[in-house]
């Protein structure tokens, strides 16, 4: 039984934390006992997106570390991470198992646009929080339509808008050429660019060329951009094509400024393109480049490296996906801490909506997470970085989308 005093105290604490009126205290969510909070997720440990599986492994390891330190408010966190093979029907089956059999309190960081889209309706109907989904699609940050679903990654439109602002600030007379992948991902970049480059600026985009994922190379598209006489190139491309575009534009002797979408900016991809060819590239980032030895004295990096050495395999230290998973798990742990003793689903959602300038060890300095009942995109500012031939270096201030 909760005593009257406890009730008033936790209610007051919650209202202080959120600045909202006194919340009605509901019963704790399923999966919550005096000693445990059980949460679930699906991850593509197998299948075409299995490279992302390390995100789930990092998160499981993070909660293991927390549990060894005593858990959160006296409760251990049990994260059940199931393999969905990047298949939406499998994700639906897994989520039903997690909710109906394993009785998890909520879903955390399920990965992939199609998998999350497949489970979104079910979870919202049942009023189960689907927190910090691991995808950049804008549909998961729409509190009006899906109040129980919250995003984590900055979305692609926001990233493109940041490139457009950077171009306006640094190259106001630029003639921009865009290479984009002809699907939701690439189209989102075009939408984001055009949302900033409006009116008399709309003419700055002088040439757009697209490619299909089935094409072997994008060489001819780059030749077309070069031939159009542009002085800024923007590659809204996935890793393989991003590497090709970087390589080809270098080989053609392109002298202007090149922006590369963040998903393609990982070190191994640039290595494939040729580190010389990648020199001078710009991207918008939010996760630290943990392969950079300059970070050695950074407290966040030291925390991360110590975690990897004890709970992960050593190679994970330089893996951007692992660093990303660490940040998401840290955010989740913070939300659960804020929940105090009221672990109802409503309060978990409420605390997720109440992030205020939260920072993570593996996110770039200055990147803060903020949410509200009307803002379901925690990361809204990005850091422009340029590639010095070996590592990404931050350049200038954060840019807000």
């Amino acid at each position, binding site marked *: 039984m909760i005593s009257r005093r406890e009730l008033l105290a936790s209610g007051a604490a919650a209202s202080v934390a959120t600045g909202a009126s006194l919340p009605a205290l509901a019963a704790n969510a399923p999966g919550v006992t005096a000693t445990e909070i059980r949460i679930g997720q699906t*991850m593509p*440990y*197998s*299948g*075409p997106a*299995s490279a992302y*599986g390390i995100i*789930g*492994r990092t998160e*499981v*390891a993070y909660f*293991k570390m927390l549990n060894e330190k005593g858990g959160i408010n006296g409760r251990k966190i049990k994260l059940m*991470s*199931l*393999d969905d*093979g*990047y*298949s*939406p*029907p*499998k994700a*639906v*089956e897994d989520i*039903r*198992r997690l909710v*109906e*059999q394993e009785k998890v309190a909520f879903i955390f960081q399920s990965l*992939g*646009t*199609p*998998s999350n*889209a*497949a489970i*979104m*309706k*079910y979870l919202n109907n049942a009023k189960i929080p689907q927190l910090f989904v691991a995808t950049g*699609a804008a*549909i998961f940050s729409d509190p009006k339509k899906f109040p129980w679903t919250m995003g984590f990654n900055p979305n692609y439109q926001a990233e493109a808008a940041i490139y457009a602002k950077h171009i306006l600030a640094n190259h106001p007379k630029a003639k921009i050429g865009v290479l984009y992948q*002809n*699907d*939701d*991902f690439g*189209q989102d970049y075009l939408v984001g660019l055009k949302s900033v480059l409006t009116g008399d600026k709309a003419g700055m985009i002088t040439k757009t060329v697209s490619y*299909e*994922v*089935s094409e072997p190379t994008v060489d001819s598209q780059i030749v077309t951009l070069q031939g159009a006489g542009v002085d800024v190139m923007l590659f809204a491309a996935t890793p393989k094509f991003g590497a090709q575009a970087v390589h080809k534009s270098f080989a053609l002797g392109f002298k202007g400024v090149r922006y590369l979408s963040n998903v393609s900016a990982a070190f191994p991809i640039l290595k494939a393109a040729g580190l010389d060819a990648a020199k001078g590239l710009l991207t918008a980032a939010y996760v630290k480049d943990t392969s950079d030895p300059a970070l050695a004295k950074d407290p966040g990096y030291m925390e991360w490296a110590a975690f990897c050495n004890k709970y992960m*395999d050593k190679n994970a230290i330089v893996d951007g996906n692992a660093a990303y998973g660490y940040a998401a798990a840290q955010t989740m742990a913070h939300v659960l801490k804020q929940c105090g003793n009221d672990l109802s689903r409503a309060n978990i959602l409420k605390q997720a909506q109440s992030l205020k300038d939260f920072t993570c060890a593996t996110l770039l300095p200055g990147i803060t997470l903020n949410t509200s009942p009307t803002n379901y995109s925690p990361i809204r500012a990005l850091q422009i970085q340029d590639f010095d031939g070996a590592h990404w270096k931050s350049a200038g201030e954060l840019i807000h989308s």
Partner: protein
Amino acid sequence: MSVPAGIKPDIARLPRRMPGRAPAFAAALIIGLLLAFSASGYHLFQYAQVLIYMIALIGLNLLTGFNGSISLGHGAFFAIGGYGAAILMAHLSVPWWLTLPIMAGLCFIAGFGFGMPALRLEGLYLALATFALAITMPGILNYKRFDAFTGGTSGLQVDKPKVPLHLPINQDQFLFLCCLAAALVMLFIAQNLVSGRVGRAMVALRDHPVAAQTMGINSAMVKATCFGIAALYAGVAGALDAALVGFVAPDSYSVFLSLSLLVGMVVGGLGSLWGMLAGAIFIEFVPNLADSFSDMFGESAKALPWAVYGVFLIAILLLAPHGIAGALRRLVTSVRDMMAKASSRPATELPAISVGNQPAEPNHRTTQGS
């Protein structure tokens, strides 16, 4: 021949009328009803998936087990059924049950149309052509110009069917019972088909194309029809699946689906229609089993499930080379033989072999390759 001899099913029992049909169907119905009112919603969802896979496998088995053509692209027709049903439901507000006959018809036409030219290819060449179909399908579903209909990579949400007429059952029970009814009807049709004239023509073309054509069987027409029927089954399964899952996306129908169906058919047993239930159970449950097995190796072993899956698959194919249905048949036959031996001992010279109407070993008739 269009199929390597190694995967040839047991021909001797195919065109035979099945005497024990009514009891088997009644038993299936009773077990299904018992499950519907005892299992949890999550398990009913899984069982409904099994029945959907079973429908698709029956179609594939008609094509491969009975007609001898290999298809590695059955997932593509599953996808057409799923997307077609989802588009009809989401954009045109067609009631979900009506999508089943519509997608059956559409997939038959698609299968027949694809089969006409493709079936001129034999054996492995046909397998590769259908494989290409499976590989291109997600790309087609992703195609930008179709986005208004297909929803692109993010897929298409569908409202799951509601329980009609205020029946005192929940949505999971209703959907499971619908899948059960569909599976039994489709099984019944398939059994009738293979025991009739068309079925005999299909088998004849598989075993002796030259002789069959001499007998007046129109090879191209029968083969393409068979391909169309196989696609029809996949289409019905896909449409049911879209209603059950309530969501379709290109990633729902990757190449892996086609390969899973092929695995399920071989595991279940080529040429056995009831065996497809075993194959469907394999497809649905063995990956989960493999996942929990590999979890025993600790959290870092998340890459293992498919290795464990492979071990399961190899074990089954070694222990039951003619699929689970073949193994059961062998078991039944050897038990009967033993009983026959025991009862025939007083009558000294009677050969035990005459008892039991099935041969102890699958009868691989030797066929001349063509």
